[in-house]
């Protein structure tokens, strides 16, 4: 009897504690059903040379994807995050995790506040993917840069941030130094070398594969950790500037049954300006290179440089948002020629429109036109140059729940 009373008292105490704290568990999710119409080549996801997610063989009503992002607060300083995704495109895992991590963020005791993330998560590069589940709030399809960020990169390791909080100096803004060490990113660069840049809202998941045949990304091949380090400046709640240097420090001569290690390095710069409540402007730039093959291979070592940029303007009013974006992207093969050079050159225009029906439903329409040339397409028997377009109208249902 006494045990029961104690157990009941403990349960009441725990329940009251859980009830007193707010939003300890928050779920945000989205379901996306869309109509697609494409002109162009077979998509890279189907083994073709096209660089859009869908192709004329998939003109129809399609399942665009679903995600469920959860956030569980443990006490006041630790938060657990997990994001599960489904894309309905024959991935070997119909539902898979794309991120899971724990964040430690103590209360600041000085103008410098530190925080840390441990787990698997996106690095702080994209200024488009700011909503739950790393989703893009401006268009359906992210830019070429952030498409690639979602495909081949995940920080599987630990990230540390020290942020100077400007309020202590009557300044609304802050400046952060961020650095991370990670593993399991040695294949990063393979997809870019094989296909070039693409525009697609089909990021990879942690344990699944992308495309046909499925390509997996997160392997540790050389047992050498990589790093990134960067700055994040937020000014007046209207400007955010990010700079990041990434180097996976892979040994390009290392290989296992999972494939070879790609030494990939890049510098990323980006700014997002929101001068008024209505307008948003984003610009990002990426410049780097990737290498595979032992150094002893000399000119047979594959080396490729790449750079990409985009500019985006978005305006919102009432329940509408209209966005236009211009992408420009290039790769340039420097050595290791065994066929046509992997020199991709392309640009794309994207126009997106979003209409919100209340808090749950929204309609998103998008039109992309991308022009690109990539000589390795000649090996498929096609033309090097491609002009593709894709129109999508997505009906999205969002759910939000908190306890």
């Amino acid at each position: 009897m006494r045990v029961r009373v104690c157990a009941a008292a403990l349960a009441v105490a725990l329940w009251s504690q859980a009830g007193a704290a707010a939003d300890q568990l928050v779920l945000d999710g989205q379901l996306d059903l869309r109509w697609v119409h494409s002109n162009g080549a077979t998509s890279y996801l189907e083994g073709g040379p096209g660089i859009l997610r869908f192709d004329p063989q998939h003109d129809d009503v399609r399942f665009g994807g679903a995600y469920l992002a959860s956030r569980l607060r443990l006490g006041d300083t630790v938060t657990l995050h997990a994001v599960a995704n489904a894309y309905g495109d024959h991935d070997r895992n119909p539902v898979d995790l794309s991120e899971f991590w724990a964040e430690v963020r103590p209360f600041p005791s000085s103008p410098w506040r530190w925080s840390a993330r441990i787990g698997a998560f996106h690095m702080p590069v994209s200024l488009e993917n700011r909503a739950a589940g790393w989703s893009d709030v401006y268009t359906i399809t992210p830019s070429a840069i952030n498409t690639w960020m979602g495909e081949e990169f995940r920080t599987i390791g630990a990230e540390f941030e020290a942020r100077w909080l400007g309020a202590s100096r009557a300044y609304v803004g802050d400046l952060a130094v961020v650095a991370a060490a990670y593993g399991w990113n040695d294949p990063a660069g393979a997809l870019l070398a094989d296909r070039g840049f693409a525009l697609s809202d089909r990021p990879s998941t942690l344990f699944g594969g992308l495309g046909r045949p499925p390509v997996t990304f997160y392997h540790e091949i050389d047992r050498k950790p990589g790093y990134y380090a960067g700055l994040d400046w937020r000014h007046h709640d209207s400007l955010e500037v990010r700079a990041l240097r990434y180097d996976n420090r892979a040994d390009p001569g290392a290989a296992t049954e999972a494939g070879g290690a790609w030494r990939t390095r890049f510098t990323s710069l980006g700014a997002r300006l929101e001068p008024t409540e209505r307008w948003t402007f984003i610009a990002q730039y990426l410049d780097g290179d990737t290498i595979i093959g032992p150094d002893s291979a000399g000119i047979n070592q594959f080396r490729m440089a790449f750079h990409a940029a985009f500019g985006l303007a978005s305006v919102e009013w009432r329940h509408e948002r209209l966005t236009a974006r211009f992408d420009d992207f290039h790769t340039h093969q420097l050595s290791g020629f065994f066929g046509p050079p992997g020199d991709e050159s392309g640009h794309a225009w994207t126009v997106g429109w979003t209409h919100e029906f209340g808090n749950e439903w929204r309609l998103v329409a998008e039109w992309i036109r991308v022009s690109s040339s990539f000589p390795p397409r000649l090996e498929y028997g096609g033309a090097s140059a491609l002009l593709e377009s894709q129109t999508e109208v997505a009906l999205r249902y969002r759910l939000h729940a908190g306890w």
Partner: protein
Amino acid sequence: MTHLRSGSRSTSAAKSQSATPFAVTRRRFVDRVTVAFATWCCLTAPAGAGDVAVNVIDRRGGVVADVAVTLAPTGRHIDPPPRPSGTAVMDQQNRAFVPRVLVVGVGTSVEFPNNDSVSHQVYSFSPAKKFQLPLYKGTRHAPVVFDRHGLVVLGCNIHDAMAGYILVTEAPYFGTTGRDGALTLPAVPPGEYELTLWSPLIADPPEALVRAIHVDVHEGSSSTVQLTRDLRMRPEPRPRHGDWEY
């Protein structure tokens, strides 16, 4: 408008404002303390006391709201007005502290209700008051007593763009300017005083924001302070409901 020890004139001014969240919060707070003061003002206002009117305008002549104003005697001793009952309020709405600037006397209790749609973690690491309010909504936490004078900068550990300020003062008379850039401190005994202004928006050097004034037994005092430097830019808080709160 949030002054504890000045009277009904600024209260009526607040009530004449449109019912923005800012104004509603200020009104609620002022209403709370007015009940205590109205009786006191009628019964205990010293004979011959005057009103002190303060107007703050920027370099181009525009009014400056939410400026903290303190008034401290520099000459003979005056009996401090009695401390009002009630608790000051620093609310949280739309991912912002409301009001942005609050002035309280030393020893005042301040409530931090969270009337926002999301939870907040309020903290301060200012020397005048270090405290932390673990994640909450509503009025879960007891009021915080501010027992040392000085500036207390408030933040939210989840929403870094949130910043609020509580100026804890030993001065017997204080308040903040309203939307019209004006504040009236009623029933101030005649004598010599030091008037001090503070706002996170004001870029003028602190010494330029202090001035000596004389409160006349009949005329009271009227001061217009024009700033010489541009205000620091400070956009209104913009909650972005699409953002995922990490």
